[in-house]
C-alpha cells in the first residue's frame, strides 16, 4: 500500500473542519439500528399474534397520517432548498425556507397529537397499542429534536459572519431531517399501509 494521506493536511492540532459531520453520519447509522430493532419487533409481534387488534378496534384511520406524510416529505424538499440558498450565500432565502421547514415539522407534530388524542386504544392495549405508540412516539421525539435543532441553527444564522465559510451544523441538521423523513416513510408503510393481519 502506498502512502495516500497527503502530508500537508490542515493543521491537525486545532481545527478539524470535517470531523463533526463524519461523526454525525456515524451516529445516524448507529441510531438507525434502534429503529430497525423496533421495526423488526413490530413485524415479528404482528405476524405471530393471534389477536392483533384489541377488542373494539377496527384498524387505523390512514387519511390524517397520509396528510402528515405529505407534509413531512415536502419538508425534506424545503430544507434542501434552504441548504441551496445557504450555499449561494442567500441568507434571507435560507431563513425563509428553514422557517417553512420548521413550520411543516411543527404541523406534523400537531397532526400526530390530534391523531393520538382520537384513538380508542392506549399504550397498554396489547402489543398492537404498545408498538404503535412506541414507534410513532419514538419517531415523534426525533421530529421534535429536529425542529429544536433547526431553531438553534436559525438563531445562529443571526450571528454575523457565522455561516460565511459554510456551516456543518446546517448540513448535519438537514441530514438528520432527511433521516427522520425516511424513517417515517418506512413507519407509515409498516403501520398504516400493512394493516391486514
Amino acid at each position, binding site marked *: 500500500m502506498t502512502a495516500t*494521506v*497527503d502530508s500537508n493536511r490542515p493543521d491537525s492540532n486545532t481545527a478539524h473542519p470535517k470531523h463533526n459531520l463524519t461523526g454525525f453520519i456515524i451516529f445516524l447509522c448507529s441510531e438507525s439500528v434502534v429503529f430497525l430493532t423496533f421495526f423488526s*419487533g413490530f413485524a415479528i409481534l404482528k405476524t405471530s399474534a393471534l389477536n392483533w387488534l384489541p377488542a373494539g378496534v377496527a384498524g387505523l384511520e390512514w387519511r390524517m397520517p397520509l396528510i402528515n406524510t405529505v407534509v413531512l416529505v415536502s419538508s425534506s424538499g424545503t430544507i434542501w432548498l434552504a441548504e441551496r440558498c445557504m450555499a449561494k450565500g442567500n441568507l434571507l432565502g435560507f431563513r425563509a425556507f428553514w422557517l417553512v421547514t420548521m413550520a411543516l415539522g411543527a404541523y406534523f407534530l400537531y397532526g400526530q397529537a390530534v391523531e393520538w388524542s382520537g384513538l380508542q386504544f392506549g399504550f397498554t392495549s396489547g402489543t398492537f397499542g*404498545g408498538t404503535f405508540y*412506541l414507534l410513532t412516539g419514538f419517531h415523534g421525539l426525533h421530529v421534535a429534536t429536529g425542529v429544536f435543532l433547526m431553531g438553534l441553527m436559525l438563531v445562529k444564522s443571526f450571528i454575523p459572519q457565522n455561516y460565511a465559510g459554510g456551516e456543518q451544523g446546517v448540513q448535519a441538521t438537514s441530514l438528520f431531517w432527511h433521516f427522520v423523513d425516511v424513517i417515517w416513510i418506512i413507519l407509515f408503510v409498516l403501520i398504516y399501509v400493512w394493516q391486514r393481519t
Partner: protein
Amino acid sequence: MTSTTFPPSPPEDASWSRYFGFNTDAKVIGIQYIVVAFFFFLIGGLLAMIIRGELITPAADLVDRTVYNGIYTMHGTIMLFLFIFPVLNGLNNLLIPTMIGAPDMAFPRLNAVAFWLVPIFGTLLIASFFVPGGPAYSGWWSYPPVSTQNPLGHFVNGQGLWLTAVALSGVSSIMGAVNFVTTILRMRAPGMGFFRMPVFCWTALAAQSLQLIGLPALTGGAIMLLMDLNFGTSFYQPEGGGDPVLYQHFFWFYSHPAVYVIILPVFGIFSELFPVYSRKPLFGYVYVCLASFIIVGLGLVVWVHHFFSSGVAQWMRNLFMFTTMLIAVPTGVKVFAWLGTIWRGKLRLTTPMLFCLGGLFNFVFAGITGIMLATVPVDIHVSNTYFVVGHFHYVIYGAAVMGIFAAIYHWFPKFIGRMPYEGLGKLHFLLTFVGANLNFLPMHPLGLMGMPRRVSSYDPEFAFWNVLASLGAFLLGVSIIPFLLNMVSAWVRGPKATHNPWNAIGLEWLLPSPPPEDNFGEHVPTVISRPYGYGTGEPLVDHQAEIERELTLQEAST
C-alpha cells in the same frame, strides 16, 4: 518537517488534580477510565469471592438465596459494563491517538462526557443494593418474564435501576465509539494508510464498529423491557400477545458481538506484543487486519446460538450453528499468525509477554469449548450449566483480562513514565494463570455432569470440583494484591522509563515517556513503512535515527 523542532519536550510535572476533574486530554481520560474500571473490578471481584464462598459447600449457607441471585447478577453486570468496557476504552484513549500520531481524539469534550457517565451509572447500579427489594436478580441478561416482575410494586426498583444503568452505559459507549471511529478514519499520521496502521487500531476500529451496529439493538430492547416493567405494556408478555424470546434476540444481537468488542482489542494487544518480545515482524500482517473485519461480519450473524434451547426453529439452529463454526476460521488465522510470529523468535519472557502467552493458551482452550458449544446437540445438553460459565470465563478472564494486564504492563512506562517491577509482575502472572485455570477448568466437568448455573446449593456429588474452583477463585483474588502493589509503588517511586524501554517499533515509542499533552503536536513524523519491522532494519518513519537521537539526548539531560 525539520528534526530540530522534534521531538517535543516532555510535559511539565502536571498536578494530580487533573485526574479528578473534567479533563479533555485523551491520555488523562484513558488513565481515569482504567483506574475507575479497576475500582469497580474490585467490587465485582468481591462479589465473585462471595459466590465462590457460597459454592465451596453444597448447602446454601453463606448468603440468602435471593441475595445470591442479586450477587451473581451484579457480578456479571459490573464486570462487563463497569470493568471490561471502561478498561478497554481507557486503552483506546491512551493508544489510538499516540499510535496514529493524532494530538487528541476527534471530539475531546464528547470523550470526557463519555467517561464521566461511567462513574454516574456505576453509582446508580451500586445504589440498587440499597433500594427496597434489593438489586436486579434476573442474571446479567435479564430475560423476561423474571426481569419484568416487580413484586414490591415500587417504581424505583433494582431491575429498573439496572436497565437505566445499562442504557446510560450504552449512551457512553456510543459516544466513545463515534469518537474512536472518527479519530481512526480521519486523523492518522501522514503516510499511514490503512495497511500501515498498527493492528491494535484495526481491531479497535472493528470492535467500535460492532458497538455502533449492535448496541442500539440492546438499547431498543431494553427500552421495551423498561416499558413492560414500569408502564404496563406487554411486548414480552405472552398474556398480552408479547413474545419473551423476542427479547433474547434483541439482547444477544448485541451481547454476542459484545464478546468480540472485548476480545478484538485483546487480539490487537497480542498482535502488538508478540512481535516486540519475539523480535520478529508480525506473521501475516494483512490477514490479521482483514480477519478482524471478517469476525465483525460473522459476529453479527451468530447470536441465536445463545438460545438454541429457547424454542427457535430448527432451520435457525442449523444456520447459526454453521455461522458460529465458521467464525473459527478468521480466529484461527490470527492464532496461527501469532504462533508464526513467535516461532523461532528471540523470545524475551517479560511480564507482558508471559501474560500474552498465558492469554493465548487460555484463548485456544476457550476456542475449543466454543466449537463444542456451537454444536446444537452438545449445546442443548450443556445449556445453562457450568460448562457455559467455564467457557466464557476462559474467554473473558483467561484471555481478555490477561491480555489487558499484558497491555498495562507493556504501556505503563510510556504513559506513566516509570517502570513497573518485574518480580511482582511475574508473581502476578503466576497467581493469575494458575488461579484462572484452577477456577475455570473444574467448571467444565461440572457442566458435563449437569450442574446448573445460578444456584446456591447443589448435589454433594459436585462438591469436589466446586472446592477446586473456589480455591482457584481465592487465588485469583490474592493475585490482585501484587498487581495493585506493583502499580502504586511503580507510579510513586519506580525507576524512570526511557522513551522506548522494550525496544519496540511504533509511533507511540517515538514520543517521550510520558508524552506531552498534544503528543507530536504539529510535527507528526511521516510513516514510510509497515509496522513491526523487527529485524528488518527498515525505519518506520522519516528521520527516525535523528528523532531517536534527540529523545536519547533529552533523557540524558534530565
